[in-house]
């Protein structure tokens, strides 16, 4: 279990050294998107239309934050359950996105796409919204404002704590961790 400090956008060199279980502190710009935004973003990519941010090396955070209190950039902002993005993520990775942050297991298709395109699925601690929100230094809506909490936001993060769940070698922390502690009768 190694620890890394990485800055976004992520290069393939960054991602291909990571292993399931590694802890990473992310700094830089990341983008938020949930189900509704993913459906629209993937359509843009497939149709070759203009994309709201540079996808190369981008890290997508599956989150729908609470509204900020006056003076704060963002409210509480922990990860949402990732499998709802499973049908969209392989396309995002294919077009150059290199990281996803969420919680919960992913499909085989997503794991395969991570291997093929050098992508990483990071887990953040679900329900630690107050703690994670504090690591977000600025936030602005850059697309789909009408989706409310589901709008696409550009976030600046500093030392945002995540754990590598799916690496580029096919490793899966959920599987490895569970096998280690499962008690079979």
């Amino acid at each position, binding site marked *: *279990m190694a620890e890394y400090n990485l800055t976004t956008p992520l290069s393939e060199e960054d991602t291909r050294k990571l292993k399931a*279980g590694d802890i990473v502190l992310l700094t830089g710009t990341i983008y938020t998107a949930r*189900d*509704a935004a993913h459906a629209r973003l993937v359509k843009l990519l497939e149709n070759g239309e203009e994309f709201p941010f540079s996808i190369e090396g981008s890290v997508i955070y599956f*989150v*729908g*934050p*609470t*509204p*900020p*209190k006056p003076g704060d950039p963002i*409210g*509480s*902002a*922990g990860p*949402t*359950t990732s*499998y709802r993005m499973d049908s969209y993520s392989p396309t995002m990775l294919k077009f150059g996105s290199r990281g996803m942050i969420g*919680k*919960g*297991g992913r499909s085989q298709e997503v794991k395969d796409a991570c291997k093929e395109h050098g992508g990483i699925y990071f*887990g953040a*601690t*679900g*329900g*630690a*919204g*107050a*703690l994670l*929100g*504090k690591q977000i230094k600025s936030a602005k809506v850059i697309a789909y404002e009408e*989706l*409310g*909490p589901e709008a696409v936001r550009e976030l600046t993060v500093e030392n945002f*704590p995540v*754990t590598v769940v799916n690496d580029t070698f096919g490793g899966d*922390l*959920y599987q*490895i*961790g*569970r*096998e*280690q*502690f*499962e*008690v*079979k*009768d």
Partner: protein
Amino acid sequence: MREVAYNDIVDAVKNMIMTTATNLPEDTLEYLETAYKEEKSEVSKKVIEQLLENAKIARDEKRPLCQDTGLAVFFVRVGADVKVAGGLLKDAINEGTEKGYTDGYLRASTCEPFSRANLKDTVGYNLPAIIHFDIVEGDKIEIEYAAKGGGSENVSRARVFPPAAGKEGIINFVKECISDAGGNPCPPITVGVGIGGTFEKACISSKHALFRDLGTTNEDPEMAELEEIMLEEINKLGIGAMGMGGTKTALGVHIEANPCHIASLPVSVNVQCHSSRHTHITI
């Protein structure tokens, strides 16, 4: 007949919602602290450490514990000798909910089932609340509240078994449900199990079981024993905190049982994440 002013209920509900969003209840905190000490996996321990730290930040800085501030779920017991002056109790609870979620900068998470359009500007901010009413003796209004997040709700299940399935069938059903859920419902979880009644009664009972504080047991010794067995079985799964592998997948199992039809054995499993935001007040 005692009278309670409509606006007093609105205010009480609003306060309850705002406080609950930023303060993890004592029972949950205590159980998480114990889980931190007893957890054998280093990765899971680290997660629980973050959860405790998160609870502290949320309380001290009045930030929502989790960005999913839930749908507002209420169990309301209305005394037969009390009436609300100035409006309907249901409207007062909804109005208090809307105010609490707005003033507390909480998330509006209600939407239409298919278009997924958020209801904040049409029906109301995070409305409608889910309210279960009951009429009881006395002149008080007792309101139990929980903010129910989507992640743990999504892995919940119900099924009507034939009576022959018995205890073993139910234990296996619960175990399978939690095993399939893995890290998705944000473990360490609390598991509410509704047994008996009809299909919908089992579901409502499994929800209400989650409103009970950790550390309390079912009054019926047979059910209390079953709670213990289920907890042990679930913690053998190895899921651990946030599914990263560990020995503390669940903090507790709460059963609520009801008499049922001679032909059926309904069972419902409702899962509560570690962010178990629940409270109750009596007016």
